[in-house]
């Protein structure tokens, strides 16, 4: 079983505990090497932003970590559990303790919102219907949705609401770590800002570790504790925003100090 609860997490410890650790990860599609030895640590209780050029393999890394793509070699540890050679039962224990927000939400289109949020509870926990209804209502409230949304079908929701429901489903089992794939893509700047602060609030309330792939410079500035940069299939740099801003590497400079980032950093 996974060790200490989320509440014990501290960001400012002398030696922060590692929630996710990726070592020498290689992923190949056909003859093309996509990831060429990725090394990455995500500390417990932090929000890690993960950036890189489009097509650099950010989503591939995310999908490899959550087990949708088989790596060629390397190790992935989540809360000290090695994932690459875990058997089904071990995986289940770990999968029970993480939540994933897919880019398009990936809500089950044949279930309504409440059933979507209750789906993981129904699978993993043996709870009364009343308690599941109450928890689902609490989760929807936590992600900032009115209670009547519960009866709607995913096809009736707006883009922002889909993201919120998907987040509520990702948080359904009170995971210790959540993976977010471009959580603010497709949202207007106000909704994106709201979503950022929602992630921050939830992270503080629930003591979450957050790993998010994003291109949103505002998110990177406002909520990420640390940022990792993927270039040429490797993590080239990892550190807080100030380190990124100070770097003289041409790609980092173009990304963080380019035209589009001016406004974000001024904010």
């Amino acid at each position, binding site marked *: *079983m996974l060790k200490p609860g989320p509440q014990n997490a501290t960001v400012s410890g002398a030696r922060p505990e590692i929630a996710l650790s990726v070592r020498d990860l290689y992923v190949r599609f056909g003859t093309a090497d996509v990831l060429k030895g990725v090394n990455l640590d995500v500390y417990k209780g932090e929000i890690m932003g993960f950036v890189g050029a489009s097509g650099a393999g950010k989503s591939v890394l995310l999908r490899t970590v959550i087990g949708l793509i088989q790596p060629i070699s390397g190790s992935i540890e989540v809360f000290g559990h090695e994932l690459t050679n875990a058997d089904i039962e071990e995986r289940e224990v770990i999968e029970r303790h993480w939540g994933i927000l897919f880019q398009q939400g990936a809500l089950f289109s044949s279930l309504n919102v409440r059933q979507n949020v209750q789906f993981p509870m129904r699978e993993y*926990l*043996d709870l*009364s219907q*009343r*308690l599941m209804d109450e*928890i689902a209502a609490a*989760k929807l409230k936590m992600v900032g949705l009115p209670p009547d949304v519960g009866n709607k079908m995913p*096809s009736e929701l707006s883009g922002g609401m889909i993201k919120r429901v998907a987040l509520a489903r990702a948080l359904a089992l009170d995971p210790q770590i959540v993976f977010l794939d471009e959580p603010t893509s497709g949202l207007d700047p106000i909704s994106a800002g709201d979503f950022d602060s929602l992630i921050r609030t939830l992270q503080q309330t629930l003591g979450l570790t957050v790993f998010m792939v994003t291109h949103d410079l505002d998110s990177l500035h406002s909520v990420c504790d640390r940022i990792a940069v993927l270039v040429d299939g490797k993590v080239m740099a990892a550190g807080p925003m100030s380190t990124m801003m100070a770097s003289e590497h041409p790609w980092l400079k173009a990304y963080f100090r380019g035209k589009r980032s001016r406004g974000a950093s001024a904010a």
Partner: protein
Amino acid sequence: MSTEALLTGKLSGERLELSASGHWTADNAALLERLVVAAAPANDAIRNVDIQMSAVERIDTYGAWLLERLRRTAGERGAQARIVGLPERFRTLVETVHQTADAPRRARGSRNIVSFALATVGHNMVEVFQSTRLIMGMLGAVTVSGLRAMLRPTTFRLISMVNQVDLVGWRAVPIILLITFLIGAILAQQGIFHFRKFGAEIYVVDMVGILVLREVGVLIVCVMVAGRSGSAYTAELGSMKMREEVDALQTMGLDPISILVLPRIVALIIAVPMLTFIGSMAALYGGGLVAWLYGGIPPEVFLQRLREAISTDHFLVGMLKAPFMAMIIGIVACVEGLQVKGSAESLGLQTTASVVKSIFLVIVLDGIFAIFFAAVDL
């Protein structure tokens, strides 16, 4: 988790003292719920409830909600609930959950069975009329876009149509050959088996010939095409609708009917008569083979008898029906495809509806044709 959640109570006069400990987490939620229900103040005599939380090692949304529920239940029973000794690190979570509204009660269905049944019948009738209207609408739209294509032939999507003919016609040949061959063989076998009692085996040739050319050939082919190609049309158009591709076409000033629907329907109108011809021949072949091997009617006799029994009229009746049936299948499939809403479930429903409706309409149309041909003595 190894550590269990605990909640113990002590009653002293008007005061109920509850002390919680252990892990108040999702894994223990089922147990906790029972404890919380049991611990709730049983009667109005209790005025104060103190919940001592200092021994709780861990808490998550589930624990926090159950704590909140305990507090609310106490409140409803007229007692004052206080949470004491809550560790500082849990405070935000408990506060957040405290602000959650009650879960909305679901409306329990206590409807009258009679009115419910009547309402269902009504809904179904409305649906029948609506789908008739949609099919008529599509028929009109396809006719208009067909006429437009005739006036300006360059606008017709020839390549797309040829591709569809390949998919729904050419590639369907093997399965159509197989199925119609078998049906012809079975018809002949059954006929011979029963006609033998009257010594009338030779009339099997009449039966197989007329039945296959007039009815069975075209019907079997149409059922196969509806299941094979009609469903594919619905699924293709449906997923294009889901991904807003149809809307994209429309906004580019292009007509989805003439780009997506017309080539598909024209392809079916070309392919189904061809398949009907091939299918009828295969069925006759199957019938002839069984008549020879099982009934002892040599091929020369079979052919001779066939020539006497049937005329080109029988063949024409069958072939004449084919394009109309093709049109019905195509139109129903496209109507259903464009009715798909956002969900995967709706795609499945519409695909099923497409196959069921087109087979139904094919058979209805066949009946209408039978009446018509009887009236004109064909």
